[in-house]
C-alpha cells in the first residue's frame, strides 16, 4: 500500500496536474483567483495551489540551492526579482512565447516598457500618489511642488517612513526633470539636495508605515494631504470619503511573475504565466482590484470611468516616474539607514541634550 502511494505521488502524471503559485494576501490574491487562476485551472484541467508569502528571496534561494523547489511560480516584487535574477535563482523567460494582443499586436509592443524582464513578466502596476480630502482643503494641489509648499498650501503632510518615493519627489519639487531623478540621486550631492528639500517640510510631516495608516491620517484630518498607494484611495472613496488623487509624478512599481530555477514543472509554470498575463486575464483581474494592467490592450477593455482611475491610464502616466527597482535594490539598505538617522534628527531644539 505504502509503495503504491509513493509511486503515485512520484509519478509525473500526478505531479503535472498540480501547480504551486505563490502570491500576496487578501483581496489581491482574490483578484488573481477570480481573474485567471480559476479559469486557468478549468482550461488546463489542473489544480493550482496558491500560497501566500511576505516577499523577499530568502525562501526562493533556499529552495533553488537545495534543488527542492516547491514553488513553481512566484508573484515577486520587481525589487526582489532583479536581485533573484542576478543571483541566478530564476529561469529566463522567452518573451516571444507570450500571446499577442487580440488585435494581433505583438506582446513586445503591448506590454508597458520595462515590464518584460529577462527573468520575469510584469503583471500589475501600483502607484504612490498624493491624495487629499476635498472637504478639508481650500485649494487642491496641482503638482508635487505644491505638496512641498507648506506656505502656499498650508496643513500637515503625510509621507511614508521610507526614502523610496520621498527622495524622488523631493528632487522633482526642486526642479529636477523626472528622467534625471535617479541620475541625480546617484550622487552624494543629489542625495543631500533631496534631504534639504525634505527638511523644508519635516516639521509638518506625519510619517506612516502602512497604506492603512496613510488613509487614516487623511480620514481623521490629521494631514491635509498625504502620499499613499492609489488602491487605498479607491477603497476610501468607495466608503464615502471625498478623497482625490493628484496623479502628477506618480511613482509606479510593478509586480512580476517569475519561475524559480530547478522547478519540477517549468513548462506548466510558463503556461500559467502566459495565461495570467494575457489581455483577457489582466482585464478580468482589474474588475476586482484598482491596479493598472501592464498590457495596453487590457486597459482598453476596462470601463472608461474605471480606467481613468488606474495608474496606467494614459493621462495619469503623463508625468509618471517609473520607480527604479534596480537602483533601489542597490541603494535601499544604505539610504534607509541614512533616512532613519535623518528622521531622528529633531527639528526643534531637543528638550534635553546629553547630560
Amino acid at each position: 500500500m505504502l509503495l503504491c502511494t509513493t509511486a503515485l505521488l512520484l509519478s509525473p502524471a500526478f505531479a503535472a496536474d498540480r501547480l504551486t503559485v505563490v502570491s500576496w494576501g487578501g483581496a489581491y490574491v482574490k483578484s488573481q483567483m477570480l481573474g485567471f487562476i480559476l479559469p486557468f485551472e478549468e482550461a488546463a484541467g489542473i489544480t493550482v495551489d496558491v500560497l501566500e508569502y511576505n516577499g523577499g528571496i530568502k525562501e526562493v534561494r533556499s529552495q533553488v540551492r537545495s534543488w527542492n523547489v516547491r514553488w513553481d511560480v512566484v508573484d515577486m516584487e520587481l525589487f526582489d526579482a532583479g536581485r533573484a535574477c542576478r543571483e541566478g535563482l530564476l529561469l529566463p523567460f522567452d518573451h516571444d512565447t507570450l500571446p499577442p494582443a487580440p488585435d494581433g499586436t505583438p506582446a513586445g509592443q503591448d506590454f508597458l516598457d520595462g515590464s518584460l524582464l529577462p527573468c520575469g513578466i510584469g503583471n500589475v502596476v501600483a502607484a504612490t500618489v498624493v491624495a487629499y480630502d476635498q472637504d478639508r482643503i481650500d485649494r487642491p494641489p496641482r503638482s508635487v511642488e505644491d505638496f512641498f509648499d507648506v506656505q502656499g498650501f498650508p496643513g500637515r503632510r503625510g509621507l511614508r517612513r521610507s526614502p523610496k518615493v520621498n527622495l524622488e519627489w523631493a528632487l522633482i519639487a526642486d526642479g529636477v526633470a523626472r528622467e534625471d531623478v535617479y541620475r541625480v540621486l546617484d550622487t552624494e550631492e543629489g542625495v543631500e539636495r533631496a534631504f534639504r528639500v525634505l527638511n523644508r517640510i519635516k516639521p509638518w510631516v506625519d510619517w506612516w508605515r502602512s497604506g492603512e495608516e496613510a488613509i487614516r491620517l487623511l480620514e481623521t484630518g490629521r494631514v491635509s494631504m498625504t502620499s499613499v498607494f492609489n488602491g487605498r484611495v479607491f477603497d476610501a472613496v468607495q466608503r464615502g470619503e471625498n478623497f482625490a488623487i493628484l496623479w502628477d509624478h506618480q511613482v509606479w512599481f510593478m509586480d512580476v511573475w517569475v519561475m524559480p530555477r530547478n522547478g519540477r514543472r517549468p513548462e506548466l509554470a510558463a503556461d500559467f504565466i502566459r495565461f495570467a498575463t494575457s489581455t483577457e486575464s489582466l482585464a478580468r483581474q482589474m474588475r476586482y482590484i484598482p491596479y493598472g494592467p501592464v498590457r495596453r490592450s487590457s486597459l482598453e477593455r476596462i470601463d472608461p470611468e474605471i480606467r481613468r482611475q488606474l495608474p496606467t491610464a494614459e493621462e495619469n502616466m503623463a508625468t509618471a516616474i517609473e520607480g527604479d527597482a534596480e537602483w533601489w535594490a542597490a541603494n535601499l539598505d544604505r539610504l534607509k539607514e541614512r533616512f532613519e538617522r535623518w528622521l531622528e534628527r529633531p527639528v526643534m531644539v531637543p528638550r534635553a541634550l546629553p547630560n
Partner: protein
Amino acid sequence: MATVSRCTAAVALLMLAFIPAPSRSEVDEVARLQQQLEALQQRLEVLERRLDTERRRSAARPEVPEPRFETERLDEAVTGAERLEEARIGAAPEPPPIRFGGALRFNHSFREDVRDSRTRRGDSGFDLFRLNVDGEIRDIILSAEYRYTPDMDVIRHGWIGYRFGDESMIKLGIHRVPFGLLPFASHNFWDGVPFYAGFSDNHDLGIAYERSDGPWDFHLAFYKNEELGNAGRLARYAPDVVRKDDQQNEDINRFNARVAYTIGRDTGCENEFGISGQRGDLVNAITDSRGSHWAAAGHVDSRCGRWNLQLQGIRYDYDPDNPAGVSNDTIRLGAFGTSFDLAARGKLAAANLAYNFDLTGRWLDQLVCYNNYSRLFKDVGDGQDSELNTVGCGAGAGPLFAYVDLIFARNMLFFGEGSLADGSDDRWRGRLNINLGYYW
C-alpha cells in the same frame, strides 16, 4: 409550488379512499398518516405566507448599487510595492523590557583667570562614567542612573513608576523635582545659576504624580527628605541643603506643585507657560527646631521651528532656625563633594536662546548652538549679584556628543573666589570648556 403540494395531498387522500377495508391496526396507521398530512399542510401554509411577505418586502426595498470593484476589503490588497519596509530589509528587533545605557566622558578646561591653567594651556581629564538602567514591565517602570566622577560616586536618580490607563504616572524614589523649566533650565554643559542654587535638575527622594491632559501638564510631589538619607553627605549630583559645620539644616517634608499649559502642542511651534511652587521645612539638628522655606517660579519655554527661547523667574526664601550666632542670611548647600553658601533669600532669572541647525549630511546628526544667561539677585546682606553667561554649541555624531562652551561668570561659584552668598571682586572671569562623551 403550493398548487403542486395541494395536488399531492389530494392524490394521497384519494388513494387512501380506494384502499380496501382496513383492519384496526391499519385504521390507526391511516389516522396517523392523516394527522401528519394535515400537519404538513399547515406548515406549508405558514411557509407560503412567509414567502409572500418576503417578496413584498423585497419589492419595497431600494435597489443597492453594485460596488465598483468587486472586492471585500481593498485595504487587504497588498502588493509587493506596498510591502512594509521592515519586511524588506528586516524589522528592528523588539527592544528588551529592561535596557542598559551609559556614558563615558572626558573634559578639557582652559581657565583664563588661573595662572596654572594658562601655563598648561588648560587641563584635560576624565569627567564621568555613567550607567543607566531603564525599562518597563507590565506598566511598572524602572529608571536609575549611577555616576562615577573624580569627585564622587553617586546615584543621580533611581525610581519605580506605575503608568495608569490614562497615561498618568506615579513615581516613587529619587527623581527630578518638578520645578520650573523641565528637564533643564539651560542648554550647555556647565549649566546655569538655577542649577547651582538647587532649583533645576535637582533630584530628591519622594513620591510624585504626573499627568497630561491635552495642553495641560500637572505635577504634584512630596519629598520626605534629601535623597541620600544623610544630610551631611556632600557627594551629590545636584545641590541640596546640607549639614556642614555651623549650618546644621536639613530640607524635609517638602511639597511641590507644577502646572504648565502648552499652546500648539505637537505642532511646529510649541509654547509652554508654567508656574511652580514648593514649600518645606528646614529642621535644624542643633536647635532641634524647624524653620521653613518656599520657592515659586514662572517660566516660558517656546520651541518654534528650530528656535528655542526659555525664560524663567524664581523667587525663593530660606528661613532656617539656626542657633544664636549663626547667620540666617545664608543657607549651606552641598554637591560635587563640596559645600557652599547661597543667599537665603533672592530672585533668580534665566534667559536661554538656542538654535538647532538643519543638517542633511551623513556624519553630523545634531548641532545646537545657544546662549544661556542666568543671574541671582541676592536679597540679603551686601552680596553682589551672581551672573553666568555661556555661549557655545553641542554637536552629536552617532554615539558621540561634544559641548564647546565659552563661559563668562561674575561672583559665581567655581570662578575665582565667587560665591552665591557674599559675592566677590565683582569681576567677570572666563573659561573655555570642551566636553566629549560617548553615550550609549
